[in-house]
């Protein structure tokens, strides 16, 4: 009985988290100094797996992500990169603990994501479409 209640609670919590997030479309967001308006899916995967480290003009890529279990992160991983959060995490871990790469910079929430993208040249992350101001933060389409 207690187990059933706990299960229902878990399901409710899960549903609550995902419903709140899936109302909004998640898009790739970059600092205004990035000129690209489209990037390929493979380049976006290379960027978020921390293998591609520079933009076409040679400037450094700075990657921001939300925590692994954040509902927006889940949507970003599945819909934009077409992978799963745990696959991204293991790709980062393989590099971080073998000296061959670095981890993306993790931010706690959407507000921090906006602040960091707006203020960091070369920054890329992801945001609900409504948060893109087109001035300090631009949107990049994946195709």
């Amino acid at each position, binding site marked *: 009985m207690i187990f059933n209640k706990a299960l229902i609670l878990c399901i409710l919590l*899960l549903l609550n988290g995902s419903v709140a997030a899936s109302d909004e479309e998640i898009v790739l967001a970059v600092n205004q100094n990035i000129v690209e308006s489209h990037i390929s899916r493979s380049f976006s995967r*290379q960027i978020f797996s921390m293998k*591609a480290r520079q933009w076409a003009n040679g400037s450094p890529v700075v990657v921001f992500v939300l925590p692994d279990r954040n509902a927006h992160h889940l949507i970003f991983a599945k819909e934009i990169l077409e992978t*799963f959060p745990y696959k991204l995490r293991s790709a980062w*871990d393989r590099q*971080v*603990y073998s000296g061959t790469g*670095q981890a993306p910079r993790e931010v706690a929430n959407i507000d921090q994501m906006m602040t960091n993208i707006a203020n960091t040249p070369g920054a890329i992350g992801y945001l609900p479409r409504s948060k893109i101001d087109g001035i300090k933060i631009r949107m990049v389409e994946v195709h």
Partner: protein
Amino acid sequence: MLRIYATWIVFLFSSTCSTALLAVEFNDGKVQIHGFASQGIVSSTDNKFYGDSDNSISFNFREIGINASYRPRPDLQFSAQVIQLDAGNVNENGLLLDYALVDYTVYSNEATQFGVRLGRVKNPFGLYTTTRDVAFTRPSIILPQSIYFDKARSIALSSDGAGIYFNREGSLGAINVDMVVGKANVDRGSEATFIRKDEPGEMESDKASRLMRIIYTTPDDRLRLAFTAANIDLNYQEASHEVDPHLFVHLDPKIISAQYSHEKWELTAEYSQMKSSITRNFAPNFSNVIEGYYVQGSYQLTPSLQAVARYDASFNNKSDRDGKKLSAATGLPAHMFFAKDWMLGLRYDVTPTFMLRGEWHHLDGTGWLSSLDNTNPREMERKWDMLMLMGSWRF
């Protein structure tokens, strides 16, 4: 004992106050510091693994590491990691330099990166070797011993030399090629694996090791296929008048790996063959093919609870799977030349940076147990069970 308490204090501290995975960063993230600390508990019937675990409980299973990386430019990274291990009687004492390297990306564009690494580099060997001491990157408390033998972990661990890498991702999928050439670092456990005990002399790299791994990933990022091939040459330099001065070992492991990943579950299998040739002065030369494989499945029961199951088999001689010929030749029990391991485990992620694991092994054979832990072969039992628990923290 003090160190055990210290590890647990770190665990308690970390599990109560950390919710996000935040590394230590300086200089706008150009400098990153990461680390990990794991404490395992082992209890087994009859045979010893990671210390005196037989019909008792061993706490001699600890992995602590810290690393730093500095990326001053997008195409340049300096990084190093030191680790401290306790693995019963098998490990080297003190701090070990796990890697220390400079990574330079010679060429990169949207789809391709090509670069070189110099220094002490981790060997590309199967799916798990490069981060084998980091519990969070393993599928279970111990790696499948058929391919990632803990008793001789150093043989394929790292090289002092150079590596090159090539990544390319396109509409047909991604290719990742890694090659490493360098001097192998050989530890006591590996020496004891070939000589059967820790002699006063030293086992060391004879010729530079050569390793190569190719990984192909399908465009949907679901299937990874890998092929590893290596050539490793070691020799034993005697200190006085031991068993066999001038002993040479040549190993040529080949591994094929496959991993299919779904949102909730993952299937992994690897198969390896390694020809082991030992050349000796005062005993006949010896050569055989070591074979190992495993099949493993994991399932995410809830976002924080994962179950894993595996069957792992290893044979010291592919054409003598029950060990009878090797037993007749050496006088040692036949069960020392194979091991078949059924494993069931659970992983509970308490927070993103702290996890607990438990797993049960049911074994037939003692092939991957070290003679440093089990000094008397006659005291080993062919059929045995092992329960392991682990807490692991990382940042």
